[in-house]
């Protein structure tokens, strides 16, 4: 284990590193500026457990109805040698009629290790490139691998299709509906970046066999239920932008040392579980440790990161908690109390005179803040004047 890995392991403590999957890798792009998230993700800590232990359990959960639906749709699409899928892909990718092979890579016999399955996947895919007879094959349950930081994440795309002209296409099956050709933009974005993760992983796998990256198409296939039925519909997704974003984020993770250097030695998020699995570390102590790593909380964290409630509580009184746009509108001033003081304190309607938050009382109005102060004063004056005015009366004529 090299130095970086050792430091990350110390932060993680005795717990096993959480394995990455396509979804968590995709989530790396959601707030790259947050050091707390970067360190926790790099170290592979169990964020939900930590959040729960410090008293701010994460608000995320999955309904079993949604899970069941997703599994059922995928099973249906892949049933009978992926018959439905084949029809769709034939139209989309011009697979040869009458048949395409269907290869289930999960069948290796016995209970193979992930490494073994991965090796077999690589071998079969590489063979597909070189031997023409393999054209028009669909590979089910392939196992790919991607280096994330110092660790390998094993990834299982839904399907890989291989078509005549020697190109591989990642196929992702999702159960959100495409209605009249439109689907929820956030869900499609998530599917696109997950597909891009698989594209990268597949390119890596083939690169070892000296297959050029263009062999894996940047056009992936998204398969969803059509309208209100269970009939699948396939749409191509161009994931070139997602690929650049991913490469950038993976490169960032590789630079985690820069962040680690800023942290005190001996910092750890270890829960110190006893024999019965119950954490012995005091929540206050753990919270103090977490606060040693700076966070960059914004309300968008509420839908992407399990630490969100903890960080939101920490950010109370900061303008960032009101949203990026609000912070900008308030001249970029960091604390609500400073905003109100600059805006004019007693003149601001509704603010009891003399309300001052600890630590901000004596913030001097530096040249930095002078322009913001001017803006806020004007805003406060206008607000006071308009509130007093009430609705205007119309003049006759």
């Amino acid at each position, binding site marked *: 284990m090299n130095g970086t890995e050792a430091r990350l392991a110390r932060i993680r403590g005795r717990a096993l590193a959480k394995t990455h999957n396509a979804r968590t890798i995709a989530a790396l*792009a959601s707030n790259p500026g947050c050091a707390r998230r970067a360190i926790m993700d790099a170290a592979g800590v169990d964020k939900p457990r930590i959040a729960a232990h410090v008293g701010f359990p994460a608000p995320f959960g999955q309904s079993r109805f949604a899970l069941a639906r997703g599994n059922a749709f995928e099973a249906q699409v892949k049933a009978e040698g992926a018959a439905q899928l084949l029809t769709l892909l034939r139209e989309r990718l011009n697979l040869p009629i009458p048949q395409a092979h269907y290869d289930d890579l999960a069948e290796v016999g016995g209970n193979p290790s992930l490494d073994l399955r991965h090796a077999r996947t690589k071998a079969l895919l590489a063979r597909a490139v070189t031997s023409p007879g393999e054209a028009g094959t669909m590979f089910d349950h392939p196992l790919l691998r991607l280096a994330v930081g110092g660790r390998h994440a094993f990834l299982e795309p839904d399907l890989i299709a291989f078509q005549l002209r020697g190109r591989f296409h990642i196929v992702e099956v999702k159960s959100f509906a495409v209605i009249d050709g439109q689907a929820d933009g956030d869900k499609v974005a998530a599917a696109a970046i997950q597909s891009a993760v698989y594209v990268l992983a597949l390119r890596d796998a083939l690169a070892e066999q000296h297959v050029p990256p263009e062999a894996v198409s940047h056009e992936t296939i998204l398969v969803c239920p059509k309208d209100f039925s269970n009939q699948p519909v396939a749409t191509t997704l161009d994931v070139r932008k997602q690929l650049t974003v991913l490469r950038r984020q993976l490169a960032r993770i590789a630079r985690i040392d820069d962040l680690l250097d800023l942290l005190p030695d001996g910092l750890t998020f270890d829960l110190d579980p006893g024999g019965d699995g119950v954490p012995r570390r005091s929540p206050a102590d753990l919270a103090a440790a977490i606060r040693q790593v700076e966070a960059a909380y914004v309300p968008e964290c509420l839908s992407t990161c399990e630490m969100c409630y903890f960080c939101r509580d920490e950010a109370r009184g900061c303008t960032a908690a009101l949203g990026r746009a609000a912070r900008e509108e308030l001249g970029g001033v960091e604390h609500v109390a400073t905003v109100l003081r600059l805006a004019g304190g007693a003149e601001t309607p509704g603010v009891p005179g003399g309300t001052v938050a600890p630590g901000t009382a004596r913030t001097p109005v530096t040249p930095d803040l002078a322009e913001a102060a001017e803006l806020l004063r004007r805003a406060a004056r206008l607000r006071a004047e308009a509130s007093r005015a009430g609705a205007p009366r119309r003049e006759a004529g």
Partner: protein
Amino acid sequence: MTERAAELAEQAAARILADLGGSRRGVVVDSPPGAGKSTLVVRAAAALADAGEPVMVIAQTNEQVDDLTDRLAAARPQLALGRLAAGDYAPPDRVTRHPRVRLSTRLADLSGCPVVLSTAHKWATVRAEAAWPWAIVDEAYQMRSDLLLRVAGLFQRALFVGDPGQLDPFSVVQTERWTGLSWDPMQSAVAVLLRHNPDLPVHVLPVSWRLPASAAPVVSEAFYPFTGFAAATGPGERRVAFATASFGDHAVDRALETAAAHGWALYELPARHAVRTDAEAAAACADLAARLLQRGAVCHSERSPAGDPVTAGRVAVGTAHRDQAAAVRAALADRGVTGVTADTANRLQGREFDVVIVLHPLSGRRDATAFHLEAGRLCVLTTRHRHACLVVARAGIPELLDAHPSAEPVHLNVPVRFPDGWEANQAMLAHLSQWKVRAP
């Protein structure tokens, strides 16, 4: 360099004009900044008129229409041109000085004119008995497709000319109702045209006459990644020199000299989050403009090897927001500088200057938004100059870009647009960093 460039440009123009004589219903021409778009429009209009085909010319603003009218009248003084206008239009000198240009608010008055020019909005109110055989649509990438829908019934065939790298049309309305539809009214005219007619020929003008050799390669790579273009002039053909020397080691002077020597300069203010109308940044832009004029800058070019003085009218400051432009104007007035244009990217589109100063859209910001990252905006701001471009920015932009989250929704059946704003900003900044001058 200029001869070879002229050859390439001529060959491209010949191919385009040949297509006009062919059987295609439409022809699209992608024109990078300063590539001779207006010249091409004038040539095409003249060629069609010469061939006896009545032409309607559609531009987006009155100013664009007037420029084309002026140039076409100069190229073909004996041709009767009709300038169709709205009621509140006041014709400028460059239009009225041509005796054969007829002005009217009614199409019927212009019936004898082989070429009629007007804005898209005015054309959209016209009801003609017969369709024109030909239309030429200028700035077609900046035109929104719903406006094209309203005028397309007036013509049978059309030449569409525009710059795909500059600002997209926009709307105050925010909705996803039409996203993914091939006739999405919020897309540009060319985007919709090509989705329904994918076999139309798309030409690219290969040479920029405006951008110097110091600018063309980086702009081409950052904003025109798939087509690219070259500068008409070679290294050293466009130069800026100063009549007076600098005194002291002032950052402003160093920045001006860097720009003169390399065509670019990045004037970097200390890192700080600032309000949009950052007074220090506005002051820096005004200082650079004032000092440039004060030092008697002279620009040498292939058109004028002996050099021409850079006058205030040939200098501009470009910003992202109107209030920033107003702050710069106030700062210029404070320094007693008059005649320098300070305006937003939207309003600088189509215009050209010798030296341009740009207030970087991301300067002083905590976060990048889609508006500020938009590639088209930065492209317009950095492609107005013939000689040199100075960018004023607070330090900290690379960190801002690095921390930018990628959480944009993705829509089905919408072709992916390149260049990506983030990538384009990154590329420009990387290039500019070589010519960094730190302000105290």
